[in-house]
């Protein structure tokens, strides 16, 4: 198991390197430098700026320099917000996005898995159809539609919750969390239903019943573990989805998180910010994929066994 984790971590390094390289060069070949949008700037000023941001060096030197910075955890200064570093901007937005993603994940996992398991227990009955229709609704109602509609109904017409902002009130966080989480709740519901149906038709479930175990033991102890394996494997990609979903949700609800910064940076062509955030997001996503991979293996004794044998 330990060796497996080490080898997966080692595999993640080339992935990250690819991400950094692609992003770095994409941003460099982009038409229009960061300062070109401004009104006529004296050439000497541009020169000074370029020197300050090392833009006058050969590109491979810039690349190596950037890699070196990254290794030391430095994302460099922001083009747009002079005097502030990308690190500071990320540090400011991260806690908010993390909190939002956490709530959304909570919504997704709790509602999704419960609905899916519940539906799988009585397939092709109302107990199955009702949660699964709701899940279909969640899948076909994307966050950028769901969010505004929720705001319109609960924020504007009923005035139950604030329409935007990110204060301390729990009311501030309900709508964004639901908006961001509902799509994934729906997806997880379908996934866990499928997984549970598959497992509950296995021979060993019949064995458990033949042993005279109460039905709840059969479901929770013998069924759930195998049934949730696809769910666990999906949590990594789901996290990646939540991060990109935060672009939209933070824009709709005007939440000052990383996602909103990223979209703004994209429009402002704040290249160091884009570069830094992309690398940062990518690292997070790769990490979460790694984590969900490791957990999937860990909860599956057969895979664990193969690892031990294949050493």
């Amino acid at each position: 198991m330990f060796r497996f984790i080490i080898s997966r971590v080692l595999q993640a390094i080339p992935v990250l390197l690819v991400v950094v390289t692609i992003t770095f060069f994409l941003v460099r070949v982009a038409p229009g430098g960061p300062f070109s949008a401004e009104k006529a700037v004296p050439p000497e000023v541009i020169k000074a700026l370029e020197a300050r941001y090392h833009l006058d060096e050969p590109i491979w030197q810039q690349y190596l320099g950037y890699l070196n910075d990254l290794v030391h955890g430095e994302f460099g200064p922001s083009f747009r917000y002079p005097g502030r570093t990308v690190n500071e901007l990320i540090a400011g937005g991260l806690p908010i996005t993390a909190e939002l993603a956490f709530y959304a994940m909570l919504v997704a996992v709790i509602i999704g898995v419960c609905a899916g398991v519940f539906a799988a227990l009585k397939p092709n009955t109302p107990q199955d159809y009702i949660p699964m229709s709701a899940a279909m609704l969640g899948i076909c109602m994307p966050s950028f539609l769901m969010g505004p509609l929720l705001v319109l109904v609960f924020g504007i017409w009923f005035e139950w919750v604030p329409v935007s902002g990110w204060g301390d009130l729990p009311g501030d966080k309900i709508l964004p969390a639901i908006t961001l989480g509902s799509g994934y709740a729906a997806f997880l519901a379908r996934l866990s239903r499928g997984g549970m149906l598959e497992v509950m038709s296995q021979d060993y479930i019949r064995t458990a019943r033949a042993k005279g175990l109460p039905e709840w033991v059969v479901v929770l102890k013998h069924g759930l573990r195998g049934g949730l394996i696809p769910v666990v494997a999906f949590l990594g990609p789901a996290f990646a989805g939540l991060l990109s979903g935060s672009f939209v949700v933070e824009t709709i609800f005007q939440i000052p998180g990383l996602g909103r910064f990223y979209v703004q940076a994209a429009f402002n062509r704040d290249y160091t910010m884009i570069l830094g955030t992309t690398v940062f997001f990518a690292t997070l996503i790769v990490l979460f994929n790694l984590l969900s991979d490791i957990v999937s293996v860990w909860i599956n004794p057969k895979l664990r066994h193969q690892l031990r044998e294949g050493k």
Partner: protein
Amino acid sequence: MKLLKVDNLTTHFHTREGVVKAVDGISFSVNQGETLAIVGESGSGKSVACYSLLKLIPQPPGKIVAGSALFDGRDLLQADESTLQNIRGNDIAIIFQDPMTCLNPYLTVGEQLIEPLIYHHNISRKNAAVRATEILGEVGIVEPEKRMGSYPHEFSGGMRQRVMIAMALITEPKLLICDEPTTALDVTIQAQILNLVKALQIKRNIAVIFISHDLAVVAGVADNVAVMKDGLIVEQGPVDEIFYRGQHEYTKKLLAAIPEGAKPLSAQSPPMNTDKKSEHKPLLSISALKTHFHDYSGGWLKRNQKVIKAVDDVSLTIQQGEILGLVGESGSGKSTLGRSILQLVPITSGSVVFDGTELTRLSPTQMKPVRRRMQMIFQDPYSSLNPRMTVFDTLAEPLLYHRLATRKTVTAQVLALMDDVGLARAAIRKYPHEFSGGQRQRIAVGRAISTKPELVIADEPVSALDVTIQAQILDLILALVEKHDLTMLFISHDLSVVRYIADRIAVMHHGKLVETGITEPLFSAPKHDYTKKLLSAIPVADPVKERQRQVDLIQLGN
């Protein structure tokens, strides 16, 4: 004393195609300490009947329509779910067919063993674990303390079945239902498991319902036998009555279908066969053949990959016109040997000479004309036919590809082939899923002989079939061998089938050939230890002989 008395049990399944009467009003009873065997072919309803007793059938689509099942004075069919939960695994326990899929892969064996004790006897986990360790030892698991923490996939098939038995018996049930408990196992393991069940039954004086399709197995274990067909019990009675004085047509048919002794000697064929053998040169000769596989499961970058020696230094010749039976247990490499001969798997070293041509050095293009001359019949008629091709497409493909037919003659040739293998001409445009297993195997046989091959390799061609169908296909193969003058390598795990069909026999074990010889001498006087062990493990469908054989086995100290 009647422990279980079942009356008019009727179970229906409601499917899209209509109501299937899986069990159609059957009655039987079991006494304490006795074994009732329920025998029948697939789809006869024998398993559904037993699962219905404990309401273990999926409901819906299944529905128990009528009947009563008195067990210890209670009617199981009227009992509510919580009563049934108390009976299941406590008073009545079940051993299922496939030990590979019937144990939970995510829980340790120990955890699964103690569950019945905890829920039925309400004892602490610690005490339950002590008891579980004891019973693991009792069913013959070595180092039971250590094995308690293992997961099912760390056990072999036979060992898993022992675990299943331990799990069923841990609560000291009064009735044990065994649903084909040895069907998925090799014959030597089967003998061990059957003896174990028998010993434990005598020791605990429990009643057993033994479900099986295999009359030979039943002959050894049963006191009473019930024969099922299409949801009905057509005949039941004491085991000797059924085997020696069976009345019903179907019982007789089942017994007659068991391949016994050597192949039926048609008037002139045996002397001709022997003549041929001495006259003709060998059609196929293999020498020092090795086929090794690399196990990439540990990652293809790893240095020390496991090497599986599926076929390890085998030399063998097949004479023109003979049927050579190749026997061995699962994993012995017999199928790989067959595929190596046809160059379907890459061989590691050695030579395969077919009619003077060295096959291992041929390019795919050079191989094409040779392929026409050697064909294969596969085991599973459900996967050996392309589901999207009609009978016509399947049979016409080789004919047209090898230019053995023109577009004008192909239909007539396909129809002739269908006649040959006993398929109705009207079925020419049907798809494989519209046929039964036996008919599908006929299509597969038709495809194999379509190119007029000289050598046919038959890989377990009847082991997926019911015993009556098996007999038909075996006779079909024998007839075709004679009609088309075929040479055949017949691969099987089933010694009685091989004995019935083969002129000569080769025994494989762990990738090596341990013994070859003419069929009857080999059966009566095996030389190699493994062959002896294999032969002594075969059950025979004759209760008296079977009882004698078991006595012999015990005396041998097996």
